[in-house]
């Protein structure tokens, strides 16, 4: 009983304490903020920038629910609810752009996600330090080639008459090469594999570095136990890059609707449009590039895309957290 009373009195003491604590806490917080005024001053410009160029456009998403009219402005334009979305879903373009977007991005994910990992694993296992370094340095040079140049290169090298592809085809078969650039069916492959050519070395850096951090005593112990190099790759190297790989996978899944539109846009021509029109290039054409531009419809399509992406990101993150315990947030 005595103990209980003591505890009770303690509790009530704590209660009375906490009230005054809140007050002093508040005061302390104000003091803390005031002491750091210079930091807030420095942050002012970046914050203003963030609001104007990131959050004001997010507010601009209301356009998707309005019928934009230049004279009335964003706020004066009439509300139309989900009409713009319905218009997009009902249009003949909808199945085409959805099919192309998902087709290209899933294909791209299936190819360009594992290849850098395999490349890093092999490079890490390769004997010969100097040759290793040369391979690594050369393979990440193409990453610095701009999209415009890259697409120019693709057109030039894959030209069926006088490009590298045409020449080699002639050299080996003695006949003229088929024009793969004019054939829409090849669009996906050209897009994805040129991406592999350009980005494998760069994407592998992150895995190569985490492989270099693997505790060497694990390898030594395995070697003493008679493990072959392949077994060490399978049981030491792969598990050690799994966390990194799962984070990269989440990010990739969260970007599934963002096919590299800059490259696709440049690679498009009238002949492959049925296979190359994706959501983001369509957004651009509806909003800015076609004769009759429709800001509201374009915003709605873009928003549809962004929401799907964001949802996928969150789902992927949840799944990864459940399975491997690591996620991005």
């Amino acid at each position, binding site marked *: 009983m005595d103990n209980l009373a003591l505890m009770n009195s303690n509790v009530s003491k704590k209660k009375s304490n906490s009230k005054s604590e809140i007050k002093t806490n508040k005061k302390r917080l104000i003091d*803390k*903020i005031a002491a*750091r005024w*210079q*930091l807030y*001053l*420095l*942050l002012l410009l*970046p914050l203003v*920038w*963030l609001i*104007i*160029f*990131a*959050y*004001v456009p*997010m507010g*601009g*998403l209301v*356009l998707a629910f309005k019928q934009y009219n230049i004279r009335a402005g964003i706020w004066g334009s009439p509300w139309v609810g989900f009409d713009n979305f319905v218009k997009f879903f009902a249009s003949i373009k909808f199945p085409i752009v959805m099919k192309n977007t998902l087709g290209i991005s899933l294909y791209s994910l299936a190819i360009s996600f594992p290849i850098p990992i395999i*490349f890093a694993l*092999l490079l890490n296992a390769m004997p010969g330090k100097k040759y290793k370094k040369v391979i690594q*340095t050369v*393979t990440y040079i193409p990453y*610095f080639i*701009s*999209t*415009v*140049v890259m*697409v*120019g290169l693709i*057109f*030039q*090298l894959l030209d069926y008459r*006088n490009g590298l592809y*045409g*020449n080699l085809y002639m*050299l080996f078969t003695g006949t003229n090469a088929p024009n793969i650039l004019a054939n829409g069916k090849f669009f996906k492959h050209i897009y994805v594999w040129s991406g592999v*050519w350009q980005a494998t*070395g*760069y994407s592998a850096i*992150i895995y190569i*570095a985490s492989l270099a951090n693997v505790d060497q005593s694990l390898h030594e112990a395995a070697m003493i136990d008679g493990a*072959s*190099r*392949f077994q060490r790759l399978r049981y030491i190297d792969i598990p050690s890059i799994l966390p*990194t790989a799962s984070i990269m996978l989440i990010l990739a899944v*969260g970007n599934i609707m963002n096919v590299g*539109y*800059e490259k696709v*846009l*440049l690679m498009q021509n009238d002949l492959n449009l049925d296979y190359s029109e994706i959501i983001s290039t369509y957004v*651009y054409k509806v909003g*800015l590039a076609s004769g009759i531009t429709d*800001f509201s419809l*374009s*915003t709605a399509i873009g*928003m549809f*895309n*962004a929401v799907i992406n964001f949802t996928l990101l969150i789902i992927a993150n949840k799944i990864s957290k459940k399975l491997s315990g690591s996620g991005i947030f």
Partner: protein
Amino acid sequence: MRKFKNLSRNDKLFYILIITILTAFFLIVLYPCIFVVSASFSSGTAVQSGKVVLFPVDFSLEGYKTVFNTKNVWIGFGNSLFYTVVGTIINIVMTMTAAYCLSRDDLPGRNIIMLLFTFTMFFGGGLIPTYMVVQNLGLLNTRWALLIPGAIGVYNLIVARTFIINTIPRELLEASQIDGCSDIMYYLSVVLPLSKAIIAVLVLFYGVAHWNAYFNAMIYLHDKAIYPLTLFMREILMSSQIDPSTVSDPELQARLADMVGVIKYSLIMVSMIPVLLIYPFVQKYFVKGVMIGSVKG
């Protein structure tokens, strides 16, 4: 490393397999690069008739001559240089400042601000709303349109912040505060000088991005006088002929049809010059930078 002949048969096979695969990939990456260099130094007819396979054929500089005789290339090159230098300076100042403030764990509200930045990496207003902001600020068709809207790359901000948190010890801040150093002074005289490595990485990332950008220029600019090189390159690389009026030398004009290929290869080489020039200087920081970025922000 143990001697090769001492390895087990399995390991020998495995190593041979690895070396073969990697060498094949290495050659696949390298070959087109060599081809472009060789083609750019060949004669127009050699390129057009497909004679170039590995080394330059009929060594000639006519491709480069034509490129340097094209006035749009000069205009574009100058503009791109301007966008890259000024844009990167703005990027570095804004990014480092924000990264420093957000690296201070004694800053009330820093987590909320960080969240505000990070969220924009995954969700945004998209093309048209951003375009309208640029339009309403009167930036359309001005050089600012390529400099201000991308002033901070959030990913780079996280990289820089992680670097500052991990490499500059807290004790340094405490010691400076005892000496009466203000937060701004500490930033300028301690943090910035100690952040050279990360600044080099950011210069590379931002600089290359500016030099290679074309989409924003395409939607925001109409005036050719302020076009970056990439927009002119797009015109030249994507078309099968070259407008004779853009080339000032009449002798070269007459042979344009023959030289479409070699001009394109030379132009690609010219556009790569700045990147190839700064790359060796920042290359040693490059891998480090990619790694810092991979550490969770």
